[in-house]
């Protein structure tokens, strides 16, 4: 057993120092050199490349195009727009099928069943009109677009295109004083911000890692894509003839996503010149070879890992939110329900920003998950504006089989093109969801940086909406 007195750390380090001087200063280089030398010697002995010249290097040829100075960004935007356009165009029909099954058919059966076994009205209200309907709504609105969007996105990833996106963005991020790898973590954020925040571990400098964490929320996550797609289809796509509606609304969604990248760069730039000062560190980004995507496996994993995962999360959060919505719509103080009190009280304030009380309340209810913003907005709109002919009572999520129905409700609730644009902006710029906030805290272990990451985007959101609204009113009036 070791019984000797422990030597101190200083003693070890000073011995190391003395020995280092004795050996000369270039030990690190010697070790590194001999490793490289060994590697190249062994490789020479064992690797043989047959007729090198005749083989066409397709990787290099593709890379020359997709990462070229002039074509790189247009190709990127085109692919992104194509993916959204296919999603927007193809999702509406299966959405209608699921809605008619879950809402038109199953909901009355459940209601009648509950009445037959003598449920009191409030219990069947909370469980069936609140919890069940909100879950059904989330499934029918979100499942089809996700089942189309994620496999396409995963195919691009599997093929090897996403690292090229990072490559294209790299110099922009370095100019903003951030780490080039932030382009990678930002792209991960387009799937899920919590995952993007965890992915920042690939960045070694704490300063640059914090910048990447704070700005990750500017990547539209998949909880927000449905909001963007739906609102763009109604308010932007509605501006043009139906032939062009799909393309124009896809363009608008890409526009918001690009705006997010722009904010990400601007905020990184501002942070690296104020509270997080420093130089961008250099790194090498390896472009992996293109690989033929394994279509079936990609479909399977994107369905299980992403679609079902995200859907499950949305359902888990929609359930209690549905109950909460039903309660705030049905608990009355005096003449008005809790929801109406809040909406009426916050409306004048929200109008300054071109939003409305419904949107503010929806974003408070949706802090756990961005996915439920749209269902909540629709439901609260019906309550507060007392639209006749839709819905089956306060706090009940009604059937909306098509985008046209949704549009009818929103227009009746006093929504305009300006409200739609502001909702899209606010959906891009608001606090991260609670999962992401918790992840940021776990990764930074700092309340201060968690607070900054939470409140910076929401302050920016209000500022941008305010600005847009004031300019709009000046121009339109």
């Amino acid at each position: 057993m070791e019984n000797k007195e422990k030597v101190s750390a200083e003693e070890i380090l000073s011995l190391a120092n003395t020995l280092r001087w004795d050996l000369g200063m270039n030990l690190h280089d010697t070790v590194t050199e001999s490793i490289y030398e060994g590697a190249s010697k062994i490789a020479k002995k064992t690797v043989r490349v047959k007729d090198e010249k005749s083989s066409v290097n397709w990787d290099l040829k593709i890379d020359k195009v997709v990462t070229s100075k002039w074509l790189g960004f247009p190709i990127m935007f085109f692919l992104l727009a194509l993916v959204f356009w296919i999603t927007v165009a193809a999702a509406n029909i299966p959405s209608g099928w699921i809605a008619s099954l879950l809402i038109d058919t199953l909901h009355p059966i459940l209601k009648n069943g509950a009445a037959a076994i003598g449920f009191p009205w409030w219990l069947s209200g909370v469980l069936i009109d609140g919890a069940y309907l909100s879950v059904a709504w989330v499934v029918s609105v979100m499942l089809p677009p996700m089942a189309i969007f994620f496999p396409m996105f995963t195919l691009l990833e599997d093929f090897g295109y996403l690292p090229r996106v990072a490559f294209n963005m790299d110099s922009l991020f370095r100019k903003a004083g951030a780490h080039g790898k932030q382009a990678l973590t930002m792209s991960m954020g387009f799937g899920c911000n919590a995952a993007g925040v965890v992915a920042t571990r690939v960045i070694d400098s704490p300063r640059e890692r914090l910048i990447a964490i704070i700005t990750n929320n500017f990547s539209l996550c998949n909880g927000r894509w449905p909001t963007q797609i739906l609102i763009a289809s109604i308010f932007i796509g509605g501006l043009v003839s139906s032939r062009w509606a799909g393309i124009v609304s896809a363009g608008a969604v890409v526009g918001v996503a690009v705006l997010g990248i722009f904010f990400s760069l601007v905020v990184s730039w501002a942070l690296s010149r104020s509270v997080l000062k420093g130089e961008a560190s250099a790194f090498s980004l390896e472009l992996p070879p293109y690989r033929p995507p394994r279509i079936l496996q990609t479909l399977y994993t994107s369905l299980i890992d992403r679609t079902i995962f995200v859907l499950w999360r949305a359902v888990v959060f929609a359930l209690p939110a549905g109950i909460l919505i039903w309660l705030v719509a049905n608990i009355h103080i005096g003449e008005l329900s809790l929801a109406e009190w809040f909406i009426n009280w916050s409306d004048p304030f929200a109008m300054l920003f071109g939003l409305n009380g419904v949107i503010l309340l929806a974003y408070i209810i949706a802090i756990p998950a961005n996915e439920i913003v749209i269902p909540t907005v629709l439901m609260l709109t019906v309550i507060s504006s007392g639209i006749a002919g839709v819905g089956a009572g306060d706090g009940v999520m009604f059937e909306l089989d098509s985008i046209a129905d949704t549009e009818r409700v929103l227009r009746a609730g006093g929504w305009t093109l300006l409200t739609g644009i502001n909702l899209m902006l606010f959906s891009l710029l608001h606090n991260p969801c609670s999962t992401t906030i918790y992840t940021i805290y776990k990764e930074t272990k700092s309340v201060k940086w968690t607070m900054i990451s939470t409140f910076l985007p929401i302050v920016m959101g209000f500022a941008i909406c305010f600005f847009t609204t004031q300019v709009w009113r000046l121009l339109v009036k």
Partner: protein
Amino acid sequence: MSNQHNCENCPVHHKENLIRLGIAMDKVDYVIALAGNPNTGKSTVFNNLTGLRQHTGNWPGKTVTRAEGGFSYNDKRYKVVDLPGTYSLLSTSTDEEVARNFILFGRPDVTVIVADATRLERNLNLVLQILEITDRAVLCLNLMDEAKRNNIEIDERTLSKELGIPVIPAAARQKEGMMELLGAIEEVASGRYICKPHRIKSRSDKLNHAIDSLVGKLKQQFPGLPNLNWVALRLLEGDQGMIDAVNSGELGTLSPSLIPADI
């Protein structure tokens, strides 16, 4: 390795001997570390062995934390730890530290190094660094299908002789070579295959003497910590991360916390 040809009688071809355990990893006999450069298919190998579906992507640096899974092969239970991809063991980012600390101080029974056959020379840099610090390793020469497409031929026998460890050609995405890999892992883990890992020979007597005297001191301060030679070499190089770890005493806490409690 003698059993790389597809002969039906080889024990390695008995697929039924493999039971994928997913995340059930109690009472394991051996711990396997999966290391390698980014984007060489470590996670695909990991999924093939454990039956888990850790998301894979054509994306360097996708695995940033340790992922763990288990399998049972010929009645022995193995735990597999999928480490983040790294280019070297000498740098300082969080993901590389995770990999480095586990190989150094977690004492895996076998370190499986997954290498990209199309970029062998660059991958060998990491392989040689790992062989400096471990005696038991297997090289999984992955992406052989891509190498074939690019007209690259690799002499696996010579490579195995040079490195002193088993070399298994594989195409993990097509699940090729996985049974042979399992066989090699078993042989090294059980001690039937004794590795004679390649070591860098350019060390002078003076350097060896310096390492010895530093290791003597380190032993007193951090008893039981494996790989003190490597720690000493880093200190002699003036590696700031290692100096900090000695200064704060953090180095002493690495060993017990990284050795899995259930073995």
